């Protein structure tokens, strides 16, 4: 079996996988990082979004072997100990989640947006969320949360 070495949330990991193992399976089943969710498994919902070398990707649509040597950041890697990341805090304060299933992917997509665009407008946020589906909230509070989270991230820089 191929073995894949990559960095996940700052720690190096070497994992034995099959060639067909998806990155999301490596994260959830091999490393126990179940914060990254699988919603659709058809590349549409964005519940599985993580960062690979700083860019948001759908971890259900990337083979683990393709991620060898990369730097992966998952929802578990955002908080500093007990202190939530500003984007996570903004989701909590703005009621940006209900069941929470889509939330890890929403937060990871939002952090990528804030890195590329420090002060996104409501329209830009809505366009950015084209690949993140939420069945609960109606998006309104997610958009509010992302706006607040991006501003908080810009302020703390």
């Amino acid at each position, binding site marked *: 079996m*191929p073995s894949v070495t990559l960095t996940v949330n700052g720690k190096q990991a070497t994992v034995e996988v*099959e*060639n*067909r193992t*998806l990155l999301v399976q490596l994260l959830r089943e091999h490393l126990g990082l179940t914060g990254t969710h699988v919603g659709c*498994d*058809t*590349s*549409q919902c*964005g519940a599985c*979004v993580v960062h690979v070398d700083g*860019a*948001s*990707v*759908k971890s259900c*649509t*990337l*083979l683990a*072997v*393709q991620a060898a040597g990369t730097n992966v950041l998952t929802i578990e890697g955002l908080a500093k100990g007990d202190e939530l990341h500003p984007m996570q805090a903004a989701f909590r304060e703005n009621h940006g989640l209900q069941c929470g299933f889509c939330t890890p992917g929403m937060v990871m*997509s939002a952090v*990528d*947006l804030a890195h590329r665009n420090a002060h996104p407008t409501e329209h830009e946020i809505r366009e*950015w969320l*084209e*690949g*993140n589906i939420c069945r609960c909230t109606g998006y309104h509070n997610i958009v509010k949360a992302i706006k607040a989270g991006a501003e908080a991230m810009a302020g703390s820089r």
Partner: protein
Amino acid sequence: MYDFKYQKAASVADAAKVIGADGEAKLVAGGMTLIPTLKQRLAKPSALIDLGGIAELKGIRREGNAIVIGAMTKHVDVANSPEVKSAIPALAELASHIGDPAVRNRGTIGGSIANNDPAADYPSAVVALNATVITNKRKIAADDFFKALFETALGSDEIVTAVSFPIPEKAAYMKFPNPASRYAIVGTFVAKTGGNVRVGVTGAGPCVFRWKEAEAALGKSWNGDALKNLSVKADGLNSDIHASSEYRAHLIGVMARRAVAKAG
């Protein structure tokens, strides 16, 4: 997903050798089409040859009067490229509306045109800008490249290495996206290059095509009104739960007029 062998190709020659020797092996670029296909067990390749590590396939450069984009260049990099934005803003804009951000962070121009999905965006630009597809073996003119539904002129051991887009005087792309997938229900790319007008239509038929009546009319007068009395026949166009062929035929004209207005 069925299992397969996996190999990172070191060079184009290396990748060509492997797919030449094993007819069941498949190239993988961004994987945004191929991996979902494998997950549905719609394909069963013996091996995946990953083009991801080949530096010579990446990047965007200006060569004389053309913008040359390497096959492994991601949609996000075309969308954000200063060269593309200044020389062919319509192409950067097209790339910025493919799928969603995570898809644009992985999907590549080479994968998109090699796949030739009837609703993909890039084929319309390749056709309307009269681009040249460069492979490891030859150069293929846009009009000869896209053959039929998911079919191109590529041979079984042929690899797209780059696409060369002549810089137009005017160009614009308008798409009527499927609200869920963002693929084109109809997308129309209009371009005027060296005085020649070309109109590429995607999403509407089984394969991208040129709307030649519109090209002739716009050649005489570059104005949306020139298209007023033209219509496209619905025969042979796609009809599905998203849109009937009649609706698609109508949209071609609407998108073409809007594109001409946008191009200015």
